[in-house]
């Protein structure tokens, strides 16, 4: 056993190796890095102001004097919008996912570990959030409060945590009666220590996979809200670009196609990475 272990490396190492051997997953990672780099540094290389009216409205790509991705209904540069629009989406998604993890993991861990009435109470509470259609719920929150980037992130977080809570709970239920947990309890570890130091690290693999996928879902979520007009009007984002060109897209396919392509690529990269992680942590399920 010891020999086999040292040959293969730690489970984490093995998973990493599996992940890097998965071409689709590596493609996802490269794609995501590209998008993040474009969002961070793209405006240095393509320093057009996305809010400035720079040419005639609705000029197609390739038309005389038009920028590479054409101009929108006001005559703004679509490529500049694509380059700059990612920062809002990615920031919102990061904050929202952070909230999802904090709320979902805490509730799921407590419910799964303690069981009994605590479990019943917390899961009933979770169910209340789960029956509300997430986008509708978030939309109402943003509409009633204010359409700022912060409200949008909080709304997405509040609408998305139940899945994570359920997953965490299921993992805790599975793990809490295993021997290493009993051993920890036998040597007198506190509940707090058992939950966060003993069980939680072992529940991480499925959580990491799910968090990757939730990142993608949060990007879709943010773009949907922005598309409906529920985003900070001053923070340009891909979804917002599509929403603003809603009335005129039949005269300019490029105004919706390119921002949409940006959203699609970002979400796809997270899906590919999530899928690759799933295979890496769980080699038996490969290809399913």
């Amino acid at each position, binding site marked *: 056993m010891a020999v086999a272990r040292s040959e293969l490396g730690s489970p984490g190492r093995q998973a990493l190796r599996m992940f890097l051997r998965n071409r689709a997953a590596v493609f996802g990672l490269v794609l995501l890095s590209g998008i993040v780099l474009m969002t961070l540094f793209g405006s240095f290389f393509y320093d057009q102001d996305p809010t400035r009216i720079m040419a005639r409205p609705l000029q197609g790509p390739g038309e005389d004097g038009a920028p590479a991705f054409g101009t929108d209904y006001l005559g703004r540069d679509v490529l500049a919008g694509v380059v700059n629009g990612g920062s809002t989406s990615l920031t919102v998604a990061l904050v929202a996912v952070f909230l999802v993890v904090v709320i979902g993991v805490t509730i799921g861990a407590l419910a799964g570990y303690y069981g009994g009435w605590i479990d019943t109470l917390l899961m009933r509470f979770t169910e209340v959030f789960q*029956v509300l*259609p997430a986008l*509708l719920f978030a939309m*109402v929150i943003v*509409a009633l409060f204010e359409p700022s980037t912060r409200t949008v992130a909080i709304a997405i977080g509040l609408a998305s945590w139940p899945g994570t809570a359920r997953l965490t709970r299921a993992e805790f239920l599975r793990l809490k009666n295993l021997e290493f947990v009993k051993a920890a309890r036998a040597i007198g570890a506190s509940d707090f220590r058992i939950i966060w130091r003993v069980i939680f690290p072992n529940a991480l693999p499925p959580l990491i996979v799910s968090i990757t996928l939730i990142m993608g879902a949060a990007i879709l979520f943010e773009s949907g809200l922005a598309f*409906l*007009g529920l985003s900070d009007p001053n923070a340009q984002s891909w979804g917002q670009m599509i929403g603003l060109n809603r009335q005129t897209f*039949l005269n300019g396919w490029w105004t919706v196609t390119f921002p949409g392509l940006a959203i699609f690529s970002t979400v*796809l990269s997270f899906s590919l990475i999530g899928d690759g992680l799933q295979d890496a942590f769980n080699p038996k399920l490969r*290809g399913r």
Partner: protein
Amino acid sequence: MKQIAARIAWSVGLILAVIVMCFSLVHLAPGDAALVIAGDSGAGDPELIEEIREDLGLDDSYLIQLSRYVGDVASGDLGTSYRFNESVTSLIGDRIWPTILLVTTALLFAIVIGVLVGVFTARRPESPVSHGVTVFSLVGYSMPVFWTGYLLIITFASNVRWFPVAGMRDVRLEGNRLEEWLDIAHHLVLPALTLGLIYLAQYSRLSRASMLEVLQSDYVRTARAKGLAERKVVYKHALRNAVIPVITIAGLQFGALLSGALLVETVFNWPGLGRLAADSVFQRDAPVLLGVLICSAALVVVINILTDVVYRMIDPRIRVGGST
């Protein structure tokens, strides 16, 4: 049966909790309903504002307002829209059917085609089509649904004019019942396809996975050993079990489906609940928003119970209360 009765009882409590939470959310929000109703012209008139506050009982305490609202909802009254000055219940009553039509069409399309694709590819797991399903499921999941809608409109309603760009019926049409239905069906194709594609992508992958598992199980081996035709083994014995996860997930995802419908309705100008909510957002029409939220939650709860019933019917193991 007993379990179903318990579920229904709990569901009533669940909806009550939803009502309390959503009402409190609206109550917490900044802004004054009276100002919204009075509108730009009336906002400067303190007497009018006072009158509206009196009318709606806005000066009562939170608990009194809440219990009044819960009582109203229980008797089927969801309040009056600020914007339309019309009963929210009747507004929702008009708009809920287009949404249900859209959502069920999309869901049926996704489940039926998805399961067929899943079964077909599970029998040939290494075929290119089978790998195509994996790719398609990732792509389908990652496309923003409103973008898919626009791409389909650009392709099938603008480049080739097979389908209408938006709406649910052609206002110029004057025909009999059948022609009206056909017209609606014609308008329904693109929105339902837009919404259905995401789920088709997921369900074909899911049913392939469960089919692969089922095909390796002992009872399928037994069925084969008895000398049953492969067709019969697959479609009669294996399919039933492969469908269960799809039904379960479809039931669980119903809320997400409604969220998707909200976006699709906006893209196609489909006169459903989502469109009503999206239109009410900018007017801060709280009674309508609250009503749509509560009705959608109720719809989700009902679908969850139905899903429960359906898979009890498909899977006798759950029915007799055995381990699942």
